[in-house]
């Protein structure tokens, strides 16, 4: 017991170290990208202020954004010190608000929307895939994979547009924009929560629909492999109830590769979520991202890149914690 605990802790610490390294690479890239690009980053960044501001004011801005003439390593140290104090610089579009303040609440909306969609798509997709492989060539196995992979071929945001047009514009069942009715005060009241839910149905639903096929096929194909193994035949030969063979022998073993894929797919799904948010003007990271692109707000874009990366790395680590619970092999 103690030794398995120690092994699990070791595994989780190693993974934590890896994510720490990945995070460090991300924030170093974040520092290097503007400085490696052709041209002077400050000139590009403040192009929109040109002619409006005195040269002295531009110099002050340079200073504020850390784009000084100091040697690279000195700028890097300054950048790291600022980051360690939770300072992501100042936003250009919402000047002079700090980037962290602009991102703040938006991150919660994205985590809520994408989190719900990812968990639903993963659960539903894996479940249906496990059923399809079990009843091989049954109705579900014939219809679901081709249909869902066709839907999965549409860009997330296009499905969002189509759903918004059909269910929001034509039928009027769900609201077209934003995360809740503008007249409501955020709080734990039924009116607010139900408004949040009805606003989330279309964006989350289209994301689930787009991602479902991938999970279903991955699960189905792993299941097909597992079902060919001897231990399944043996379990059946022992006369175990069919449900038990399916759930405890086949599904449990087939889950593992899918769960590992879950972590890596997160970044991809999140990218889809960002574009979906734009269609619905959902007040999350994606909505900020397009505003940042339109206003050429480079510090905001980079802040978004960093926060999204850290969120993805954190979620990956949580998935690792789950594998430790579910897969005894990681504990030895």
């Amino acid at each position, binding site marked *: 017991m103690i030794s398995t605990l120690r092994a699990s802790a070791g595994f989780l610490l190693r993974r934590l170290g890896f994510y720490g390294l990945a995070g460090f*690479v991300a924030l170093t890239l974040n520092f290097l990208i*503007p400085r490696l690009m052709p041209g002077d980053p400050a000139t590009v960044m403040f192009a929109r202020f040109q002619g409006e501001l005195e040269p002295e004011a531009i110099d002050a801005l340079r200073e504020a954004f850390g784009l000084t003439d100091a040697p690279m390593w000195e700028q890097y140290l300054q950048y790291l010190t600022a980051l360690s104090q939770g300072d992501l610089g100042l936003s250009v579009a919402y000047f002079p608000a700090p980037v962290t303040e602009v991102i703040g609440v938006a991150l919660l909306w994205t985590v809520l929307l994408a989190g719900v969609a990812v968990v639903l798509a993963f659960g539903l997709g894996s479940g249906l895939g496990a059923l399809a492989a079990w009843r091989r060539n049954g109705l579900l196995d014939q219809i679901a994979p081709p249909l869902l992979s066709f839907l999965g*071929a549409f860009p997330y945001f296009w499905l969002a547009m189509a759903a*918004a047009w059909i269910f929001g514009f034509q039928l009027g069942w769900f609201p077209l924009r934003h995360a809740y009715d503008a007249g409501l005060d955020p709080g734990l009241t039924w009116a607010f929560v139900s408004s949040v839910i009805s606003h989330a149905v279309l964006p989350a639903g289209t994301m689930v629909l787009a991602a479902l096929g991938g999970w279903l096929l991955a699960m189905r*194909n792993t299941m097909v492999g597992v079902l060919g193994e001897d231990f399944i035949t043996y379990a059946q030969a022992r006369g175990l109830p069919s449900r038990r063979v399916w759930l405890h022998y086949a599904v449990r073993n087939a889950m593992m590769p899918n769960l590992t894929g879950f972590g890596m797919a997160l970044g991809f799904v999140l*990218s889809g979520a*960002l574009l979906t948010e734009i269609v619905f003007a959902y007040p999350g990271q994606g909505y900020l991202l397009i505003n940042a692109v339109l206003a050429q707000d480079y510090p905001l874009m980079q802040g*978004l890149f960093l926060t999204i990366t850290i969120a993805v790395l954190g979620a*990956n680590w949580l998935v690792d914690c789950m594998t430790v619970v579910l897969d005894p092999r990681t504990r030895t």
Partner: protein
Amino acid sequence: MSGLLANRKARLGLGILAVIAVLAIAGPWFAHDPLAYLGDPLEAPSARHWLGTTGQGQDVLAQTLVGARLTLGVGFVTGLLVLIIGALIGGTAGYLGGRVDDLFTLLINVFLVMPGLPLMVVIAAWLPPGPLTMMGVMVLTGWSWNARVLRSQVLTLRNRDFVAAAVVSGEPAWRVVVVEILPNMASLLASAFIGATIYAIGAQVGLEFLGLGDLSLVTWGTNLYWATNDAALITGSWWTFVPTGLGVALTGFALSLINFGIDEVTNPRLAATRHVAGPPRSTPVMREEP
């Protein structure tokens, strides 16, 4: 290849892809000028404009056909580049093993967990917009998946006897990789290329939808960008975004069908209809009545 043509899914995929390719190559010669203002804004589909007009009064059919050319062209070239970079890095890591492998695997894993779109946006925003920027950014963020898959395959083949024999007989490393190992993973390379192309088309359309492409060009991504900017949803003009979306989806679907076909041909278990396992059927104890 003949095995692939015998597969139903692969045949269907190749068929759809061929139709799209013909439309993308030949279509623009017959269509209107996609940028000319030919009618009123947001005209519904009619005999004059089969797929209606955009918010600027441009012909949607012409934009869809012309957009296909650039989008698919960039998609396939990017797919090829992603494959080459992935094969180079993954192949080197798998073949050399040891410290080099450890280092490359770490690099691959770091790029795998980093979310693609925000990274692409951060880089693309600093560069002049256009197809070249798009390709560079997609290659930079997309190579890791293929590198990982190809690395493990090279690693397995590396330990086979025929490769050991080639090494012992004094063949140079590049020859072992190019002549002995790569031909033995042709199907994996093909499906990696197709996967990379699907990724490239999706990423490109997404980035251009965000407004990071060259907006003076006509591509599927910019079509969707203009559709939302011209308030397609609020005016209910579905014809401005449906044709382009169908184009993207059909291309992606056709490519995945080919990939399923490759999968089934190389992994017969997936295609086999023989009884593997399933809900138990009762064992016939008595002979059925004739």
